[in-house]
C-alpha cells in the first residue's frame, strides 16, 4: 500500500495534540507514515508513541537546534521522506501556522498540488478528494488533484476516529545538506496547551464576547460562562481591538474559523465578517440588547436583553443542573 506522510509537530518536546487526527486522516488514504524533526537522541520514545497512533514508519530527521529554526527543517525532512519512501500518494500537514507553511513550501519543492484548510478527505477512484469551505462555510467545495501528488493541510477537529496501531519503525533521514535560507526563532512566548480550557479550534462549545462586554474586567463574565460549560473563549475583532482579550481569540473572517456544536455570542452584533467565522456552528445562541442585531439572523435561540443580567442567571442555572 502506498504511504501517506504526516508532518508531526512538537509542543515542548511532546507530540502536538493534532498528531492522532493527522494519522487517522492518513489511514483513510493509505499507510500512515510520520515525519518528525527532533533534537539528536529524542526520537526513540516519540517513535513508540507514533506507532501506537498508527504510524507504520517514522521518518526521523535529527538536527541540533531543531526547535529554533522556522519551518525550513520540516520542509527538508518532508522532501527527504518523500524520496526515502519512493511511493507516496499524499502528504498531510496540520492547518496550523507552522504546518500549513511547511506544506506550502513542500508543494513547490517537490512539484506537488497544495490543498489548504481541508475539512474532509477521501479516496475516490484512486485519487484524493478534499472538501474545503469557502467564505466562512457559505460554500462547500470539493477538489481533486490535476497534477502531482496532493499536499493537504487539514483543519484541526475535522476528522473522527483513530488509525489502528502500527509498528512505528524508525527510518533515519538526513537533512544536513539543506541550504535553504533560514529564519531563527530567538524566543518563545507561548502558553502550553495544558490549560483546563479547550482550544478554540477544537472545542465542542465556544463562548465569545464582543464590544458589548464594555471592558477587560467585565470580559471575565465570558470566561465564567465558558468555564461553567467547559467551553473555549472567543471574541469579536472589536473586543480584541479594545484590548479585552488576546488577538488569537478572534473569531471571524480574519481570525479563527470555528464550527463547534454550540456557539454562544455575548454582546456581539454579528457583522458579516464575524459570522464568516462561526456561522457553521451546529447551534447558535445570541444574547444582545439590540433586537435588530444581525447576529439574530443566524441564531437558533436568541435573547434580546442585557447580558449583564441574563448571563449571571444562565451561569447559575447551568451550575444548578450540573449539580
Amino acid at each position, binding site marked *: 500500500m502506498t504511504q501517506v506522510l504526516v508532518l508531526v509537530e512538537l*509542543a515542548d518536546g511532546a507530540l502536538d495534540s493534532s498528531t492522532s487526527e493527522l494519522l487517522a486522516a492518513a489511514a483513510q488514504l493509505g499507510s500512515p507514515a510520520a515525519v518528525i524533526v527532533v533534537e539528536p537522541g529524542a526520537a526513540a520514545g516519540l517513535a513508540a508513541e507514533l506507532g501506537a497512533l498508527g504510524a507504520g514508519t517514522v521518518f526521523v530527521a535529527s538536527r541540533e537546534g531543531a526547535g529554533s529554526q*522556522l*519551518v*525550513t527543517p520540516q520542509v527538508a525532512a518532508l522532501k527527504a521522506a518523500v524520496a526515502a519512501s519512493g511511493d507516496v500518494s499524499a502528504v498531510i500537514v496540520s492547518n496550523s*501556522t*507552522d504546518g500549513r*507553511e511547511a*506544506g*506550502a*513550501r513542500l*508543494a*513547490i519543492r517537490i512539484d*506537488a*498540488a*497544495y490543498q489548504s*484548510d481541508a475539512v474532509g478527505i477521501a479516496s475516490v477512484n484512486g485519487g484524493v478528494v478534499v472538501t474545503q469551505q469557502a*467564505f466562512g462555510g*457559505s*460554500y*462547500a*467545495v*470539493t*477538489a481533486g*488533484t*490535476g497534477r502531482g501528488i496532493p499536499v493537504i493541510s487539514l483543519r484541526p477537529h475535522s476528522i473522527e476516529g483513530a488509525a489502528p496501531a502500527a509498528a512505528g519503525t524508525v527510518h533515519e533521514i538526513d537533512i544536513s545538506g539543506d541550504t535553504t*535560507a533560514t529564519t*531563527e*526563532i*530567538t*524566543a518563545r512566548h*507561548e*502558553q502550553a496547551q495544558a490549560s483546563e480550557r479547550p*482550544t478554540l479550534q477544537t472545542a465542542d*462549545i465556544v463562548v465569545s464576547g464582543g464590544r458589548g462586554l464594555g471592558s477587560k474586567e467585565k470580559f471575565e463574565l465570558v470566561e465564567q460562562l465558558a468555564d461553567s460549560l467547559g467551553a473555549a473563549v472567543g471574541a469579536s475583532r472589536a473586543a480584541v481591538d479594545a484590548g479585552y482579550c488576546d*488577538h*488569537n481569540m478572534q473569531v471571524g*473572517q*480574519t481570525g479563527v474559523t470555528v464550527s463547534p456544536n454550540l456557539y454562544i455570542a455575548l454582546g456581539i452584533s454579528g457583522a*458579516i*465578517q464575524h459570522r*464568516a467565522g462561526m456561522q*457553521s456552528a451546529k447551534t447558535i*445562541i445570541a*444574547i444582545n440588547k439590540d433586537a435588530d442585531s444581525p447576529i439574530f*439572523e*443566524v*441564531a*437558533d*435561540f*436568541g*435573547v*434580546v*436583553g442585557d447580558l449583564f443580567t*441574563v448571563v449571571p*442567571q*444562565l*451561569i*447559575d442555572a*447551568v451550575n444548578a*443542573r450540573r449539580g
Partner: protein
Amino acid sequence: MKIAVLVKEVPDTWGDRRIDPSTKRVDRSGDVVIDEINEKAVEAALLVKEANSGSDVTVVTMGPASALDAIRKSLAMGADRGIHIIDNGLTGSDVVQTSAALAAALDGRGFDLVITGNESTDGRSAAVPAMLAERLGLAQLTFLRTLTVSADGGSGGTVTGERVTTEGHVELRASLPALVSVTEQIAEARYPNFKGIMSAKKKPVEVLALADLPLAAGDTGADNSWSVVAEVTARPPRSGGTIIKDDGTAGTQVAEFLAASKLI
C-alpha cells in the same frame, strides 16, 4: 532598500460574496476592493521606507484590469511604482500557479524585502507568502505583528519581528533579503491625502503579460492547474430560530433550551 509589497483585489467583505456555479470560481462581478490586510502591508512597507532613507517601494498585483485600483490606492498612500501582472491566460490559476507568476515577476529585480498580507480574505490559503519564499530562496518571516528592519548600508541587514502563533507568539530574526507576511495587528493603514491621490496618477505602473514572464508553457491557466475544483455547493440558509425578549427569566430559559437540545 528595495521593497516589494504584494496586494490583491478581493470581493468586498461587507457584501454577499458568491462563487459562480458555472465557472466554480469566485464571483468578482460585485464590489471589489484592495484587501484590507494589503493596505496594512503597504503601511508596513512605507514605515520601513521611512526608517531607511533611500528606500523605494514597488507595489505588485496579479489580477484583472480592475486590480489597477488596488495599485493606485497603494501609490496614493505613498508607494513609488507599480507592477500589474495581467493576462487572460492567468484566469483560474490555483495557489501554486499564482505563486509561480508572482515569483517570476519579482525574480531578478533585486528586492531586499518582499512584504505580503498573511492571508487573503477570498482565498484564505495563507500559502502564497511561504511559496514565494520557497521559489525566491528568501528567508521567511511570516504572520508578523511587529516588524523591524535594520539595514547595514550595503545590501545586507537584519529583519526581526513577532510571529503570532496559536498559543502566543515567537520572536524571529533573519538576514536580508527576506520575505515578510503581516497580520492585521501590524499597523493602521494611513489614508491617502489629496496630494497623494494626485501624484499617484503620475507614478509609473509597469504592465506584465504572460509573455513577459519567464514561465514554462503549461505553468499557467486553469487547464494546467494542480488542484481542480470538482463541485461547489452553497450551504442552505439557517432557518429562523426562537428569539425571546428577556422578562427576567431569559437566563433560565437559555439553560432549559441547552438541556432540551442535550447540549448540557
